[in-house]
């Protein structure tokens, strides 16, 4: 009995953990089946540039709906389009947390349906009269395999916007072919170097695609059941080559344009900075209110031959009901209201969104000639992106923008960029279709260990009683997840496996093999190591220099310096990032303004996050800024701890100042330096917040990814949780390795340091077997505690 109580408890806990958790969690995210008549209705709509009018229309609809339904509270949340992938992924994984109604881009639908994220509304819409006025091809943008998953809320078509005054003054014709569009842009910029010839960015896929389509190319084509990339075909390459010519210094410099999305591209035109752009009907209102309103005109984007129209992308957003809703009836009614004719017309008036209803559109076309070019574009034939769930991955990973940006930056030629993009596309298409169904593994649910030692008052049992709360929390929230992390990394674990729609498949080392074979992984690993190394060196240099400086300052100045450092140290990572982003904002940031004012060149509009190295440098500077205080304070304390007599003695022996610093003080500072170095390595290796916030989740085409952000994106944006976990395991192992080196260094440091107090301490520490590691670890944790705060 003496020995068994704790031992048995451990065995029990271990056994419980083993038997209840031999597979990754697999819980059906099934709909609740509840249909509440009241309560809160959560709605997700996309946030847009100048969305105040949209909000007003939506608010009116909400007010009308709430007035008609007692006890119903509609909460509208505007989510950014850029990060929608991870938001929707999360919502599908946990239907209980999902909104009830959501606006979504029609290109995303196939993926959402594959994830069983939206409710099939076919029956609800069959007897809804207005639905008959939506043309079949438009209705099809909300359908997958014949079932409707929403109501088209509006259509979007894009056309060529140009400045009548600029073209007239320069005696230029309105371009009649795509080739002429580029040449006209070049001519404008030649005459007006301060102006962009045509503002069309590298991240503006729907401006790029008409070039490809007009030349007879396409993103991919359906072969059998699977899509195969055709972006590397000769036709596609011709279109892409032409679009790539826009992103050159003599039309739209890559420095400015490579990062531009559709919104930002149009924004340049509206601000009067560009002679042309490719804009949508949804930009018309903004155009009308802009300073160039008087001097702008719109024509359909021409094709390769005069008189033709380049095929436009049939864009548009739908409103749908999410599968997890507990208020299905209410949700459908809200969709019918907001996507009804009345509010679609209001949305047209507010935002210029083209109504999906044929009759409403016709009515508009007769009364409003501005939308003429867009209707003409739609009539000339539209195209769509591949209807497959893989499109969400393609979009989230930015494969097409990445391709364009690499060409624009001159890193690769069109052939190589399209080859790479085609490979990435095929991988995405392949993953979405290859769904193995082998080795089903049973999936028991989590059960929390509830074992409790008997309430005896014996001193042997008491400590365990005190340990239970902490052990319980740590076991469930730390040990178990760690175990799951490793486990999941050996499984093919994606959306269908998580919800139990498909059986789990043990894939062994496949995730790791895929990672090691992926050049991007190696690039990210290199980024991580290089970035961490640079940050560590920077932190040590700045912190060390200031520590030395602090010893020479008058107390008053020193206090100011320490207070300032404390401020930087205390600033949370998120707010620190925000402040730095503000300082380096391309147009409004003080840094660019100061540089321009100093006459160092024209920095207005200079983007610091465009170039890979300048983006890393910016983030690195922020990291150094928030972590140097730890180094400074530690080293300062270390210098202060050196006994005066030692330095005095050295000086009496005739040593020079530099020699004292190098041969006397540095060896004595060695322990402190070791601690701050390794500690800095550990933090800088796992930087997440700064990269995520400052480079918008990993920079252009993922150029600024580090391991942690990479794992996060793989898991939560692309839905490849197995792969993400594998990256997590690798990160953890690398960190443990560093930690091990850390502990060894701490243990050894006594050998190098001859300070009397250390020897005494070592003697003391050597006293009890259990105490020595504790003393070493104590030091480690003290540093962790003090420094870890700022970095997080």
């Amino acid at each position, binding site marked *: 009995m003496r020995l068994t109580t*704790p031992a048995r408890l451990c065995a029990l806990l271990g056994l419980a953990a083993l038997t209840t958790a031999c597979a990754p*969690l697999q*819980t059906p995210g099934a709909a609740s089946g509840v249909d509440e008549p009241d309560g809160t209705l959560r709605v997700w709509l996309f946030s847009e540039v100048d969305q105040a009018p949209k909000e007003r229309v939506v608010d009116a609809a909400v007010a009308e709906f709430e007035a008609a339904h007692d006890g119903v509270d509609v*909460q509208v949340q505007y989510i950014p389009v850029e990060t929608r992938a991870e938001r929707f992924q*999360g*919502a599908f*994984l*946990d239907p*209980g*947390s999902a909104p009830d109604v959501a606006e979504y881009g029609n290109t995303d639908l196939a993926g959402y349906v594959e994830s069983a994220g939206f409710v099939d509304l076919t029956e609800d819409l069959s007897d809804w009269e207005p639905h008959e006025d939506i043309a079949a091809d438009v209705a099809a943008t909300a359908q997958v395999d014949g079932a409707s998953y929403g109501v088209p809320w509006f259509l979007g078509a894009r056309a060529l916007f140009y400045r009548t005054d600029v073209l007239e003054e320069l005696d230029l014709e309105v371009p009649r072919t795509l080739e002429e569009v580029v040449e006209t842009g070049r001519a404008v910029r030649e005459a007006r170097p301060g102006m962009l010839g045509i503002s069309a960015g590298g991240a503006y896929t729907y401006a790029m695609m008409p070039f490809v389509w007009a030349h007879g190319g396409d993103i991919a084509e359906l072969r059998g059941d699977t899509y195969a990339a055709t972006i590397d075909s000769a036709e596609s390459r011709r279109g892409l080559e032409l679009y790539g010519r826009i992103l050159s210094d003599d039309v739209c410099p890559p420095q400015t344009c490579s990062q531009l999305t559709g919104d930002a591209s149009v924004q340049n035109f509206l601000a009067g900075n560009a002679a042309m752009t490719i804009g949508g009907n949804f930009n018309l209102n903004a155009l009308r209110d802009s300073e160039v309103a008087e001097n702008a005109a719109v024509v359909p984007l021409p094709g390769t031959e005069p008189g033709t129209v380049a095929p436009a992308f049939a864009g548009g957003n739908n409103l749908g009901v999410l599968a997890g809703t507990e208020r299905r009836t209410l949700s459908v009614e809200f969709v019918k209201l907001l996507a009804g004719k009345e509010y679609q017309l209001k949305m047209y008036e507010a935002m210029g969104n083209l109504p999906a209803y044929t009759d409403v559109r016709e009515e508009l076309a007769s009364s409003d000639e501005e939308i003429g070019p867009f209707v003409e574009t739609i009539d000339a034939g539209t195209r769509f992106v591949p209807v497959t769930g893989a499109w969400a991955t393609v979009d989230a990973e930015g494969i097409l923008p990445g391709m364009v940006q690499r060409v624009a930056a001159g890193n690769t030629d069109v052939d190589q960029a399209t080859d790479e993009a085609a490979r990435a596309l095929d991988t995405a298409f392949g993953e979405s279709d290859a769904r193995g169904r082998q080795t089903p593994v049973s999936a028991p649910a989590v059960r929390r260990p509830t074992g409790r030692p008997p309430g005896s*008052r014996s001193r042997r049992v008491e*400590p365990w009683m*005190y340990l239970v*709360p*902490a052990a319980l*929390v740590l076991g*469930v*929230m*730390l040990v*178990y*997840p*760690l175990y799951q*992390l490793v486990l999941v990394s050996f499984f093919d674990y994606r959306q269908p496996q*998580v919800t139990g729609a498909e059986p789990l498949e043990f894939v062994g080392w496949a995730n790791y093999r895929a990672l090691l074979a992926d050049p991007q992984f190696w690039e990210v690993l290199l980024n991580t190591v290089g970035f961490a190394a640079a940050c560590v060196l920077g932190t040590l240099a700045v912190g060390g220099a200031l520590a030395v400086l602090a010893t020479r300052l008058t107390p008053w100045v020193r206090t100011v310096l320490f207070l300032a450092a*404390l401020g930087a*140290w*205390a600033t*949370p990572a*998120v*707010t620190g990032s*925000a*402040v730095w982003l*503000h300082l380096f*904002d391309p147009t*409004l940031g*003080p840094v660019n303004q100061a540089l321009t*004012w100093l006459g160092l060149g024209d920095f207005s509009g200079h983007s610091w996050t465009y170039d890979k190295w300048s983006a890393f440098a910016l983030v690195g500077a922020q990291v150094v800024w928030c972590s140097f205080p730890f180094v400074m304070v530690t080293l300062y304390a270390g210098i202060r*701890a050196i006994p005066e007599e030692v330095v005095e003695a050295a000086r009496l022996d005739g040593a020079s100042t530099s020699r004292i610093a190098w041969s006397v003080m540095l060896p004595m500072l060695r322990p*402190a330096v070791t*601690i701050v170095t390794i500690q800095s390595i550990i933090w800088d290796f*796992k930087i*997440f917040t700064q990269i995520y916030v400052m480079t918008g989740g990993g920079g252009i085409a993922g150029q600024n990814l580090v391991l942690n952000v990479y794992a996060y994106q793989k*898991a*939560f944006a692309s839905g490849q*949780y197995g792969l993400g976990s594998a990256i*997590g*395991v690798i990160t953890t192992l690398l960190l443990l390795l560093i930690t091990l080196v850390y502990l060894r260094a*701490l243990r050894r440091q006594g050998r190098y340091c001859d*300070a009397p107090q250390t020897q005494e301490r070592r003697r003391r520490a050597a006293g009890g077997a259990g105490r020595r*590691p504790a*003393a070493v*670890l*104590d*030091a480690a*944790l*003290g*540093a962790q*505690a*003090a420094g*870890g705060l700022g970095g997080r």
Partner: protein
Amino acid sequence: MLLSALKPRAALEAGDPTPYTLEPTLESFRRVLLIDGFGQYLLNSVLVAVVVVTASTLCAFLAAVALTRYRFRLRTTLLVMVLTAQMVPVEALTIPLFFLMRTLGYGIPGIGLNQLGSLMLVHTAFAIPLAVWMLRAFVASVPRELEEAAWLDGAGSLTFVTRVLFPLVAPGVVACSIFSFIMTWNDFLFARTFIISAQENQTLPIALLSLFKPDENDWGGIMAGSVLMTLPVLVFFLFVQHRLANGLGGAVKG
């Protein structure tokens, strides 16, 4: 940061290069607090932090008592385990924790995804190892004779721990509470991942991020939000700055 927050919005948007303003205004603060609902987010952050601090400190205190005032098998092993736990990169655990929260949410209302409870639970867990380690030193410094005296006076072990020991280590409890508070307050990753659609359950860092708009960043608002978020941390930092130096002193002389 403070200067930009106090600047009138118009001056900021006009790109006025002077780093200060002669007409400081609280308009940005009013805007974020009233229109953007920062009051609610502030409250959420405070709520999460308070629960985490209380729960983690309590758990850690009891664990520290067990690990210092008793000698038993596995004691050293447990100590090392606590330390290893401290070294585990929390970022890597986001994925499994997400699924764990999702599963727990089905069984126990209030702690699933989208709920503040999920954040409380996770942060409590991550705050415990450090808190145990910090409190250990404090608990160990209380002389053993005191315990014997209490025992002679008829106090049971539990009475001793709650009535005598706890008040004696109160300074340590305060210090380690502040550390837990700052850790929780600053969290970005979990708040970002766990709170999916419940806007009313967002915490400050995420609310701050939502102020970043495609083309028209409201820098005045962002800076005002940053000030609101940084102030409490700064105040607490000033509180523990001596401890920071002391903790480091130990480490440096190590």
